[in-house]
């Protein structure tokens, strides 16, 4: 084979690698949509599981997931935005605080999700929850047990780097001249950051929040021991209630069902719901980010 032919075939090989990745994604999504489409009905989305989870719906799991990510967002977005503001607007790049914080956030992003589960159990449930019970409930077991509040906090720790990265990127893309103009008009640093820079980076905050929600909705390992329940007859009402969750529901249906064949169609439908939810969220985030880059209004 000539050098040119050899060259061509190598390029073709690398192109095939791309094709393979795309195909695999298509197969997974296609398979889930194909089998999961049919069982989805209004009853499935709005009803509770029945007959040992072989019939009925997944409403409690959807409700639990939404509640979980909403609570998580309340914790993670303000903290993430503040850390991102620190990185982009306040930090002295040479200081030990900057380097340590940067290192900490990088490492936080790489901690295995199951370790977050252990942390949530050891810190939030046993330590913080136990302390709350001692102080306010005379030692009666109230918050010192797995609960949606602890699951949301654990998930907030896990998704913190996602928010920070996204918001920081947006803050950095705000032109320096905006800050200079603000200072020139006599604004203080706080005013500059919160009234000029942050509003310009709002889309980044939104993207960060959406990506965090998408990640939080999909993770199961961290909440295995901090509040996700196999089956609950009632929806969670208080912060110390346990909850059902889509991802955990999938895990339970797929591995612990006494009759896998009987639950299979509902299992597929549940997977489709979770997949659609995370894809939709990701797609929204990607679109916002892409539009920002294209319009270049910020650069």
């Amino acid at each position, binding site marked *: 084979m000539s050098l040119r032919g050899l060259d061509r075939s190598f390029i073709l090989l690398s192109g095939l690698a791309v094709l393979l990745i795309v195909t*695999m994604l298509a197969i997974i999504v296609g398979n889930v949509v194909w089998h999961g489409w049919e069982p989805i009905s209004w009853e499935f989305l709005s009803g509770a599981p029945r007959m040992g989870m072989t019939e009925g719906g997944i409403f409690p799991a959807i409700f639990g997931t939404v509640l979980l990510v909403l609570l998580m967002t309340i914790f993670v977005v303000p903290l993430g935005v503040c850390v991102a*503001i620190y990185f982009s607007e306040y930090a002295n790049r040479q200081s030990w605080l900057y380097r340590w914080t940067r290192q900490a956030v990088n490492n936080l992003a790489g901690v295995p999700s199951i370790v977050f589960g*252990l942390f949530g159990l050891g*810190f939030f449930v046993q330590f913080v929850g136990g302390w709350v019970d001692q102080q306010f409930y005379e030692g009666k077991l109230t918050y010192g047990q797995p609960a949606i509040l602890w699951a949301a906090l654990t998930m907030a720790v896990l998704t913190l780097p996602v928010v920070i990265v996204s918001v920081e990127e947006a803050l950095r893309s705000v032109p320096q001249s905006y800050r200079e103009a603000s200072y020139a008009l006599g604004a*203080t*640093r706080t005013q500059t950051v919160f009234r000029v820079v942050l509003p310009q980076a709002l889309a980044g905050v939104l993207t960060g929040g959406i990506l965090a929600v*998408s990640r939080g*909705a999909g993770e199961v390992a961290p909440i295995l021991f901090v509040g996700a329940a196999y089956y609950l007859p009632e929806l969670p009402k208080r912060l110390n209630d346990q909850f059902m969750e889509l991802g955990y529901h999938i895990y339970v249906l797929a*591995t612990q069902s006494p009759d896998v064949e009987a639950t299979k169609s509902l299992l597929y439908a549940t997977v489709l719901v979770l997949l659609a939810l995370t894809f939709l969220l*990701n797609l929204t985030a990607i679109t916002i980010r892409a539009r920002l880059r294209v319009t270049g209004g910020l650069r």
Partner: protein
Amino acid sequence: MTIVEAATFRIVGHSLRRQAMELVVQALIYLAALVAISLILLIFVFVGRQALPVLISPAVHEEVTLGELFLPQEYGTSEVPLRYVWQPVSVDPKYSLMPLFLGTLKVTLVAMLLATPLAILAAIYTTEFAPGWLRETIKPVVEMLAGIPSVVLGFFALIVLATWMQERFGFDYRLNAITAGVALALAVLPILYTVAEDALGAVPRSYRQAALALGASPWQTAWTVVLPSALPGVFAGVVLGFGRAIGETMIVLMASGNAAITSWEFAEPVRTLSATIAAELAEVVFGSPHYHVLFFIGLLLFAVTFVLNWTGARLVDRLRRRLAGVER
């Protein structure tokens, strides 16, 4: 008080309030940074706190010692020696971590061997040969792949992939290290690809122009000039992907079969470190030796991934420095 005095008073008061506000906000921002640092410390401390008894508690040592965790034991008979056994729930609990290490290693190895070449080739194609529109399509596709929850990949491996692979390759066991490894490869592919693609894209255009001007073919340019220049970054992707693979839980929990077998056979069920924690912690007695051993495993996972991530970050830094100052 004259009018001038009153005005001065108000202005000074106003600016004082403003300054105080300024300081409060700044303090809050710095506090947020400190919270971020303390979170990683808290993880270490609170996982470590429950893992510590494995090292120092006599009560735990009555049931399991460090030696039993890591060193070969004599569990079997003289005819059938059993050196490494993970059997924490039995009359005579056995806590050898070796089958779990081996299981983790096997699954991770399969995943990395599949994902690494695929991701690097795809990254080369994207940065070097793909037309613009295609490049802009591939990235969202990979982001979509990254966005698939691991429990969905685990489900897919368990329900679809396992059956398909058993029919195709005739495995004795439906769930095994290879099946779980293939699914795990899908989970680590995006991070490998993204880091590699970033690294390749950061190689200055002048490198390519020089190679092409010297008569190198496009593939030669990509393979012998661009890839070696970006090598620290590509390697960083491998290291980070490895860290992700070791810690990934739901996929292996669902698709690996979860049998703690000590062997090098890849087509057998395996039990990984992460899946062991996930499967056993919910049923374990709080404060029992088993409980502490599970946290000890968590601490090991935390330490290993910490080192891997740190190494990965170092490599990316090195690449940045290597390519810094070169004309684009």
